[in-house]
């Protein structure tokens, strides 16, 4: 019995002597996931209420100023405005569809134009609360004596604004 145990012990010691060298490392993995970038149209692009005095283009800029054709303004022109939300202090890009669209009063039409040049910023940044505002202007072509009415884009959508990190 003793001999068996001794042999067993010797065998186990021999096995342990051949034991494989082994090592384990603890390693780290990291990632930053940005909050979803969201955009909401909070104000339509509004050229106001105009009395056209001469042919020409009339523009509402992203900062709300106007220029172009000689008109008498009876309303309050406003650029389109978009509320952006995402990860605080992150930069994002703005792309405006290059649009030459037709606005109509149901019978008559006028031409509307906007593109990247009419944005308040193309390389923008979210603030410390993760919010930003992007304004977009545009231009319409007016003709002296054109038929009055409310001109708007078919379906109410004249252009597309895309934001991305």
């Amino acid at each position: 019995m003793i001999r068996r145990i001794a042999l067993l012990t010797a065998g186990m010691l021999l096995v342990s002597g051949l034991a494989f060298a082994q090592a384990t490392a603890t390693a780290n993995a990291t990632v930053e996931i940005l909050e979803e970038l969201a955009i909401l149209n909070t104000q339509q692009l509004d050229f106001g209420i105009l009395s056209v005095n001469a042919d020409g283009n009339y523009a509402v800029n992203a900062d709300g100023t106007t220029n172009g054709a000689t008109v008498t303004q009876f309303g309050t022109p406003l650029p389109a405005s978009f509320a952006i939300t995402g990860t605080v202090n992150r930069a994002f890009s703005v792309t405006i569809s290059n649009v030459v669209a037709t606005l109509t009063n149901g019978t008559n039409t006028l031409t509307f134009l906007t593109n990247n040049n009419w944005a308040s910023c193309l390389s923008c940044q979210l603030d410390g609360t993760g919010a930003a505002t992007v304004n977009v202007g545009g231009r319409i072509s007016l003709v002296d004596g054109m038929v009055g009415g409310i001109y708007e884009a078919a379906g109410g959508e004249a252009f597309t604004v895309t934001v991305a990190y």
Partner: protein
Amino acid sequence: MEAVARKGHRFFIMRSLVILILMSLASIPAMAQGNSGRTVTIDPVAALSFGTLAVSPHGGSIAINPDGSTMQAGAYQVGGVIAPAQFQIEVKNGKTYTIILPSSATLRSASGGALTLDSFTSDPNGVGTVEKPSDIGQLLIGARLNIPPGASGVYQGDYFVTVTLFE
């Protein structure tokens, strides 16, 4: 009397052998670290990094392969560095080692969110060798990161990699 003494002597030998066996069993892990001068060490050189990602509202995933290539679904890089983990393997009196990767790991954010890492892969895969005379090799590890809808923030976590020298 003699019989009693012999019995006591036998009991002493038995007890000694049992203790020896237990010591032998207990010593296996320790001896495995360097018995006969055979050792293997693994040291992290670069962390597994998924960079800064924007993710679809539906969630997504990104897998980094050991060669640094990626497979993305619903997630895309907007910054940072995407890179596999890198380890240095150093062997003494050996050449070939096996690699044990975790089946999964969890990355956590400060706010308590959790992301799962799985599908770990490595290069070399399964078995690696180190070349003489440096006795040093490189191990690259990739994995897939699964991102549920609405996840955001900085996530980090640990995982374990084991190498065993067998030749």
